């Protein structure tokens, strides 16, 4: 027997849905059966209002198109178009590539929350700490320059350089 869905491959799987009057039966090949799989099991973990996201994305897109060509992510090749189509970003770097649209998208699906205050990976913990240290030192540096304490300023400047080198600031995050 041929698969009822594609009419090409041999039907190997018998799928029934519902019971009593609602009962429906299908004979499908494995591919088509797999494709119909999701509707058989509800897995509500990740359902979200995709329309909300798409709406915000397409609004952003039309704004963007007015300004010229479509931007493409260097890592995965995604454009706002493909992100809209998939309802997902293409890779972690998309968050940086589309940095103009991302905050708006996130704010919409996360009920206007925009900042992560939870767990930080061990590796980033030290990086973030170094970044904060550098910021503090830079403030101190400009204060010292203003009060013309150049000798001390030079020490601070070297400290900043040292931290920037050691912190592995590769600009990725």
């Amino acid at each position, binding site marked *: 027997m041929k698969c009822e869905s594609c009419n090409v491959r041999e039907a190997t799987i018998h799928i029934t849905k519902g019971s009593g009057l609602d009962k429906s039966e299908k004979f499908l090949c494995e591919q088509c059966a797999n494709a119909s799989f999701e509707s058989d099991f509800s897995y509500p973990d990740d359902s*979200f209002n995709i329309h909300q996201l798409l709406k915000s994305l397409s609004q952003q897109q039309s704004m963007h198109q007015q300004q010229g060509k479509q931007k493409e992510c260097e890592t995965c090749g995604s454009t706002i178009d493909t992100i809209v189509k998939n309802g*997902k970003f293409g890779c*972690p770097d998309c968050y940086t590539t589309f940095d103009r649209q991302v905050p708006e998208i996130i704010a919409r699906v996360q*009920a206007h929350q925009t900042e*992560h205050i*939870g767990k930080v990976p061990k590796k980033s913990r030290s990086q973030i700490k170094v970044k904060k240290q550098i910021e503090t030192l830079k403030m101190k540096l400009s204060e010292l320059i203003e009060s013309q304490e150049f000798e001390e300023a030079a020490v601070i400047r070297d400290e900043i350089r040292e931290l920037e080198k050691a912190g592995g600031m590769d600009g990725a995050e």
Partner: protein
Amino acid sequence: MAQNNVSPWIENAAEAPVEMSARIRLARNIRHIPFPHMVRDGDALDEVLEKLGAAFDEYQKVSMNMLKFEDKALLVEKHLISPLFTRQGLHSYINEEESVSIMVNEEDHIRIQTMGAGIPIQDLYREAEAIDESLEDVVDYAFDENFGYLTACPTNVGTGMRASIMLHLPALTLGRKIERLSGNLNRFGFTLRGIYGEGSVPLGQIYQLSNQLTLGQTEEEIIQNLDELKSQIIEEELEMRSRLQSEHLLEVKDSVHRSYGILKHAYKMSLKEAAKCLSDVKLGIDLGVLEQKNFKFQKWIQLIQPAFLKMRLNEQHKHYTSLEQAVDEERATLMRELSGGK
């Protein structure tokens, strides 16, 4: 391959009124690698997979390309993998208790999931966090200072954490309170929905309470809020139950014992009917209008699912003309056996 029985942690789960199992899921991705839906062959993850394999050598590695359709369906029914994972997943690492599952190449590169019953959800989080930290030693996570853990879908960004608790809410369902309740929960960034099946009354009147937002709160805050909401819902359910008992005792007794009769004596049973009967009996036991030792709601609700029953049919080498009829018959047979019928 995982055993054909229910997971050990379900087998050993203590029965409690209302509260069932809980689950923590963390979504994690690797820096600079496209998300799974963008990669067709999974090559980019090869190196990562090797490292993961070494880190989880005490876990059972379950590879999707080695499994038959029925085996995958069984793992889905056990909540060890997701339907999406059956199509695009590569490997899942599962512990002996089957309470931990690490999926590689689900919607995100890595999904860490811990499940349990009768233990605080905080403990499940700590368990997931420990796995998370050991993974961190071997891979570089995609993390942004402002947006937190970066995920394929922006609905998971931030903590990447989904915390959920399963609740048996027959009285609130009967009193039509679920809709109002879930509307209220939505305003706090939480959702309440049926775990099995769709429609107004979910299978077995079992619901999943989970956080909708993953950003702007710490993991601990989300879990604490979830726990508080859970207690409130349980309280409302129990209040509704005592009203049922005082105002409609005869009706309650009647429907509980009818359902018990069906479980004990029927010869064919749809999933929907079996789930409803189990739910009624569970309520009857909780209310003290029916005594049934060895009744295990969580376990039996899993055993009546199609893939479990097909597995039983295969084990017995039974011949049948219609699979669906055979499954319905097997479901009734199993229920008769378990509830002490003939």
